[in-house]
């Protein structure tokens, strides 16, 4: 597929737009050949990444924006999530031990389990680019 076969979505950094993100991504991921079950997991992991942008990069400020760029081709999807907030401190990002049952720490676990590539890029002056990539299993 050509470079233009990408879908870009920009939403305010408010949790109510997580549903819009899920709704827009789901048909794209299905169209790329993933099963409903796989697509559900991909959507979950993207949702967690965007929730973390709202919670950590923007520290709950809902007046900022999140941009997602989804590129799909047969059997592969790549989603780049861009924010303009506080940069990720990679050393602080860690899924918790799942045997330790308590709220929190699941989001990064989902992202790591679902995607083949999870890459935080903080080389720009502000914000983070998070690349999530999954090839069909």
């Amino acid at each position, binding site marked *: 597929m050509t470079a233009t076969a990408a879908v870009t979505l920009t939403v305010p950094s*408010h*949790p*109510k737009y*997580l*549903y819009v993100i*899920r709704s827009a991504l789901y048909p794209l991921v299905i169209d790329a050949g993933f099963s409903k*079950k796989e697509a*559900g*997991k991909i*959507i*979950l992991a993207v*949702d*967690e990444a965007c*929730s973390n942008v*709202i*919670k950590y990069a923007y520290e709950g400020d809902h007046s900022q924006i999140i941009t997602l760029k989804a590129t799909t081709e047969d059997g592969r999807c790549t989603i780049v999530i861009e924010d303009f907030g506080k940069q990720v401190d990679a050393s602080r990002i860690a899924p918790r031990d*799942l045997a330790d*049952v*308590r*709220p*929190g720490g*699941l*989001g990064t*676990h*989902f992202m790591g*389990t*679902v995607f083949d590539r999870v890459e935080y890029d903080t080389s720009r002056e502000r914000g983070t680019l998070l690349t999530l990539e999954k090839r069909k299993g």
Partner: protein
Amino acid sequence: MKIRGDVDMSTSPDVRGKIAEAFRQIDAGSKAVLIDLSQVRYMDSSGIATLVEAMQNCMKRSLRLRLVDLSPPVRDIFELARLSSVFEIYASLAEAEAGL
């Protein structure tokens, strides 16, 4: 009690409130809190965190927490979170009420 709709960062505060309300209205003789999840098609980690909290609340009061009738997508999410064995999960209300 029954939860409806997607449970994500946007809606889990409401769900937390609904569960707190259910705790307040509980009878002295009750042995368990049953949460019907049949009408929930999506749940993220904030929804799971809300249920884990509810379980901890139940344990403090010597109540059981039983989750009932999970939809297939929610079952997938529980599996991914390896929580299928942490919660007591029942296929139907009748089964969840049996043996209490």
